[in-house]
């Protein structure tokens, strides 16, 4: 097989298109690069959707956590504590068993109604793992936004008061933009490590349906097959360095926009702060 044929056969293997059998026997470099790149689609999918959906829940959590009313504050505090205080790996396992067991219990209890069409997607990685990642990143970003919300300068709020702004208008025009500006460097790191965390999905209970896995899943497949870790894992590394650079570029652009009204010396630079395995 020429390299172009390999690309045609395996470029979308992780989504279930193309060649059904994974390469075996003499594995070429081209096959490794193609298939691992194909798996990267899943990492990007999990990362993008979890990040996008998580942003809104995170803002809500941050606002709830800084609420003076305990009825609103306590649930947000507990949510953030549970998801930040426990390993993501355990959360995946727990969610998987919960999503598999509960439907079974309901089915056996009711006997008549078959709800498997509704509950089956939840036990699959594309939805079940996405939910876990979404909740997890919401908790981490929520804590970041909460910290930023608390450090909105007092003068800004007093100025808003002086202009007669209150409630929603004050939040939308003064508090929220400043919160985003302050939180953005830390949020960039969170985004980077969310993409890294997506590699855990297929190692944590959620099965790779018909061997449709992510980049690391295929890398491990090749490492097991060839017994040579020095090729597949560096390929994964290069792919993820590229993803990281793209994330930094995009978030850096947003950061510049958020800071565009400030004099150059007061702008916040994006700095690397590890917030790694969760």
């Amino acid at each position: 097989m020429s390299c172009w044929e390999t690309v045609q056969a395996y470029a979308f293997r992780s989504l279930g298109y193309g060649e059904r059998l994974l390469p075996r026997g003499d594995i070429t470099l081209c096959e490794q690069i193609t298939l691992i790149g194909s798996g990267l689609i899943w990492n990007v999918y999990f990362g993008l959707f979890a990040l996008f959906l998580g942003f809104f829940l995170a803002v809500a959590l941050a606002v709830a956590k800084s609420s003076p009313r305990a009825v609103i504050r306590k649930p947000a505090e507990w949510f953030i504590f549970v998801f930040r205080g426990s390993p993501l790996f355990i959360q995946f396992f727990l969610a998987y068993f919960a999503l598999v067991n509960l439907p079974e219990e309901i089915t056996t209890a009711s006997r008549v109604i078959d709800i498997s069409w509704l509950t089956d997607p939840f036990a699959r990685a594309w939805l079940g793992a996405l939910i876990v990642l979404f909740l997890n990143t919401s908790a981490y970003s929520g804590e970041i936004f909460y910290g930023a919300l608390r450090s909105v300068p007092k003068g800004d709020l007093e100025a808003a008061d002086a202009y007669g702004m209150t409630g929603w208008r004050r939040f939308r025009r003064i508090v929220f933009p400043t919160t985003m500006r302050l939180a953005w460097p830390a949020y960039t790191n969170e985004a980077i490590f969310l993409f890294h965390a997506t590699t855990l999905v297929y190692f944590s209970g959620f099965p790779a349906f018909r061997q449709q896995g992510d980049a690391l899943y295929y890398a491990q497949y090749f490492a097991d097959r060839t017994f040579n870790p020095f090729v597949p894992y560096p390929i994964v590394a290069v792919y993820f360095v590229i993803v990281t650079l793209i994330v930094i570029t995009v978030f850096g652009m947003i950061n510049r926009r958020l800071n565009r009204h400030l004099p150059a010396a007061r702008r916040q630079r994006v700095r690397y702060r590890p917030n790694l395995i969760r």
Partner: protein
Amino acid sequence: MFEYCSDPSSLETTRWFACYLTNGVHMRFYSSFLTVLSLLAITAPVALAFGFLGAMASRSHLLPLRALGKLYTSMVRGVPDIAFFLFFVIALDQALEWVNHQIQCPDWDEPIRQGANFVVCQAAKIPLSSAPQWMHEVYNYFIAVFTFSIVFGAFAANVLFGAMQSVPHAQIETAEAYGMTRRQSFWRILVPQMWIYALPGLSNLWMILIKATPLLFLLGVEDIVYWARELGGSRTSQFAYPHGDWRLWYFLGLLVFYLCFTKVSEVVLGRITRRLSHGQATMGGEAQRKAAA
């Protein structure tokens, strides 16, 4: 454990659970918590030492040493750490066997990599294939500990390098004005002062390390995740203690364990930070001074 446990099928619920939770495999489950704790106890200082060496190397005046240090500190930035875990476990194993092979069988003329196989002579296998099972387990465990130390050493190097840069430069200049050599000013001035700047990063790292311990499971060690999966799986009536699929409850137990562990660590680290900030020219120290005044 208890004498009434001899026939579990006849017991009522409380006693059944008392027997079930104290049977042999559960004892191994509980001792695997010690495995996790011992991993933390070994990894934390070793990783700190690696990190210190890495940070020192990246401040070095020798170009190759500095390049090596920079490479080590930046290797974890762009790449998922799980990739490193999976990579190092095999790579370390093969590296050890290769070195041992060169020593033990110098006159071996076949290539070591034969297609998809990695072949070393029988005497170079680590541990020897005739070794008892526990030797294999101990070997796996130490490979895992070493892998953790390398990866977390890189994180620690990042933190410590930043901390060394944060010590006010005037301090070093003053030391040099007193005629101290580079080495003296490093050990007597920089190192004692850097810890307060490193502490927030190191506390964060400790929390991350705690939360990384379930990954031992991926490295082939029989840790708490392994046992929770084993014990939770459903047991038919052939077994002494038949039950359904209880993995959900076992993992819930692990979740609670980790939540308690991180909470306790958070409180302890908060206390240490407060103590170390005392009298420091940092924001925390300043806040303490104002509160006292």
